[in-house]
């Protein structure tokens, strides 16, 4: 399959505009920043620690935002019959996916960086290389999960219905892990739980790269790539 930089760039510009103008996609990063800001201002500092706020924000942005930026635009393209037009205008699947993922990833990275000062965390407390790699990787996994949802959805409503339980599992499990040991154990094997634990450890104790964290993230990455390739090869982006 040939890749044309010109076409990838055209899709990138199109997707950037479509993400920015789609309220249902922008709600995740806006909520991430907004909630963190409101909680920081309105709740006592003892409860709303920097680690909690940053973890909360990253969950909203990279996990929820990632899944939504993957699923909604693809479902919207199908719903409005524009995906078929693109695919019959000399764009191949790989060019479409690469051009679509780049603006989503950039948005996730920017918001993940902005969240640090908004959560009131000192910039020098962040292990930036690992923070960026882990959060970007989790955003990428979320986008792939979003694409899988998008492949199986015919419209945005269906994408929303399919996304909701998955969003709840990945965002709520790490949030409620302090309630009991079983949830904590389950959360440690999810990519979202790994991110929360990493942020907690980074900001409370000195974080050293953990084999289990890397294994969990890589397993989720490989799994999501395999399922995505299976779904794509079986149904294409816009199957009959």
């Amino acid at each position, binding site marked *: 399959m040939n890749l044309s930089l010109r076409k990838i760039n055209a899709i990138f*510009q*199109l997707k950037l505009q479509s993400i920015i103008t789609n309220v249902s996609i922008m709600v995740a990063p806006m909520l991430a920043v907004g909630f963190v800001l409101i909680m920081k201002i309105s709740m006592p500092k003892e409860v709303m620690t920097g680690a909690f706020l940053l973890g909360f924000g990253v969950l909203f942005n990279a996990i929820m935002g990632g899944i939504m930026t993957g699923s909604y635009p693809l479902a919207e393209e199908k719903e409005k*019959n524009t995906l078929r037009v693109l695919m019959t205008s*000399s764009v191949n699947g790989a060019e479409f996916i690469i051009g679509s993922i780049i603006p989503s990833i950039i948005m996730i990275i920017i918001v993940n960086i902005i969240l640090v000062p908004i959560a009131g965390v000192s910039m020098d407390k962040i292990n930036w290389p690992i923070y960026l790699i882990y959060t970007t990787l989790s955003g990428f996994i979320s986008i792939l999960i979003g694409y899988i949802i998008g492949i199986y959805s015919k419209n945005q409503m269906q994408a929303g219905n399919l996304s909701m339980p998955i969003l709840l599992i990945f965002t709520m499990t790490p949030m409620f892990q302090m309630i009991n040991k079983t949830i904590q154990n389950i959360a440690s094997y999810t990519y979202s739980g790994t991110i929360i634990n990493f942020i907690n450890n980074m900001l409370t104790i000195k974080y050293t790269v953990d084999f289990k964290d890397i294994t969990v993230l890589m397993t989720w990455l490989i799994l999501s790539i395999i399922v995505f390739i299976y779904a794509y090869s079986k149904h294409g982006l816009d199957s009959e």
Partner: protein
Amino acid sequence: MTQTDLINVQHLSKHFKDHSALKDLSFSIKAGEIFGFLGPSGAGKTTTIKILTGQLKQTTGSASVLGVPIEKINEAIYEQIGIVTHNSGLYDKLSVYKNLEIFAKLLGINKSRIDEILKRVGLFEDRNKAAGKLSQGMRQRLVLARAVLHKPKVLFLDEPASGLDPSTQIEIHRLIIELKNNGTAIFLTTHNMEEADKLCDHLALLNDGKIVETGTPRELRLNHNKKKRYKILLKNNEEVTLSQSMETTQKINWWMTSNELVTIHSCEPTLETVFLEVTGRKLI
């Protein structure tokens, strides 16, 4: 396949689980020719376009577009073909201009061509308007503009003027004829017999996935003009319809000589009548 055949179809069939959508279709289309598929809804017109544009696989038979067998169609061929369907989507939040700009970038086309085509379809004044705010007729003109932005060699039009007001239909027909005159091979599907009659060089009547008759619109009408009749308007406002006979010839001769005859029209069947005669069903 001759050298100028841009589309060639041989014994093409498509079976879905419970029915046959297309049965043994064969036809070819040359450069600068409009080939029409005339048939009612569900006859297999859109399925044919989907197969010829690589969006659907045929069950049996073979076809090629621009010399490329349809099994080997990939994204490269879309740089030379344009597709307009009745549900071709637009990016509603983007302006008219931006909608074309995306495709100009994708296809590596100079931006000056955007203004040129917008002027041609009468949307230049509305170039900054959001596509979502366009009327149905304007949307269809924009879809057509996008399909011909890259000056395709082959154009697939699936009911391009369906549901449009008469003036927009005329405008779209004018554009289609202009494209044909510039050498584009056009595959047009329609259930509108007037559209087919006006635009098409060759027609295939499609019923239940099968071509039941082919020819030029005139050939089709004349071949089925078995009972030759003439509708005559006389000076006294009397309207008479007469079959061809020696008596009719004499009557017409007399009315013409005595200056009684105001109008005279032959009553060859319309394409709709031909379709009804051949298939036993209407073109709806």
